[in-house]
């Protein structure tokens, strides 16, 4: 009897697995939720976002310690879409749009943390939990580069997602 073709899931380098599994645990183990707030999705999202923020903030500092300054805001965002995304998710952002007034939309057509979830609508409602950490990473990275922002994410169909970055300007 012929064996089914080898699964492709084992082709990613093994050193990417620990973070993936840890990320899964953050979402599903309930470890971030206090007993009386079990099932509070907003508390979960906000803690995931904060863990991402703190991680992104520190990571970018280490990654760019020998780098020169960015030319402007757009240059910084482009860096996030290309080099930074490649460094942490092994691919570039597929599409970047901006209104040139401080709003940027980053579209990833196959976001790594969603790529192992069924592409049907079945788990669509769980989507936001898988994006909160990354929203935090973007906000943290930008924050350390001197740009304060709000980052939210949306999914229309798995595994495509969009990150909306809104720059907060000092008034």
């Amino acid at each position: 009897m012929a064996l089914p073709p080898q699964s492709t899931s084992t082709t990613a380098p093994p050193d990417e697995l620990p973070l993936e599994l840890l990320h899964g645990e953050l979402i599903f183990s309930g470890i971030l939720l206090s007993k009386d707030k079990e099932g509070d999705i907003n508390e979960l999202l906000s803690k995931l976002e904060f863990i991402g923020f703190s991680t992104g903030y520190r990571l970018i500092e280490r990654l760019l310690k020998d780098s020169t300054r960015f030319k402007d805001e757009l240059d910084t965002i482009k860096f996030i879409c290309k080099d930074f995304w490649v460094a942490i998710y092994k691919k570039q952002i597929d599409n970047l749009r901006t209104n040139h007034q401080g709003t940027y939309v980053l579209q990833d057509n196959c976001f790594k943390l969603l790529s192992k979830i069924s592409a049907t609508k079945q788990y669509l409602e769980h989507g936001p939990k898988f994006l909160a950490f990354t929203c935090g990473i973007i906000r943290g990275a930008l924050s350390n580069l001197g740009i304060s922002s709000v980052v939210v994410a949306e999914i229309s169909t798995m595994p495509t997602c969009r990150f909306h970055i809104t720059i907060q300007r000092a008034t």
Partner: protein
Amino acid sequence: MSRQSTSSRITADSKKVNSELFVLTYGTLVQQLVKDYESVEDVNKQLERIGYNIGLRVIEDFLARTNYPRCTDLRDTAEKIQAAFKMYLNATPSLSNVTADEFSLVFESTPFGEFTELPDACANLKYCNVLPGVIRGACEMVQMDVQAYVIADTLKGDNATEIRVRFIKKLHDALPAGED
């Protein structure tokens, strides 16, 4: 010399970035837990628990990648765990005090501890307590009941970080009542 296709501002190689991303995420998680839970003991317990959950999954990936056959004895198991550390965390523990039913994994420095300092208030925190959990979870999936615990930690001034693993018993698949 290989030519670089694009010039990236990020000069660190992918392995290093993966590892730092993980280390920093883990560090932030521990920090968050210390804030959220009343006692450090609870934090240790929670870390062990998520480690166990991760172990249940990591073993599958490990077996799929390596095609290792069954272990012949506990030393064999220990060597495979050693190989897994190298593979997933690029850490190289050495084995010591191997007996028929116990062994130690000794790390020169605490895994994930490269950016960490423990404040005095966290003197009882077992920073890498996720690892004993992973070992326990992974072994359970291959029918081995083991006990694993951190007995020395460089973050607390010890010379090395040591995780002791004790074999308790072989597990047998229990069929649900009423099934043959």
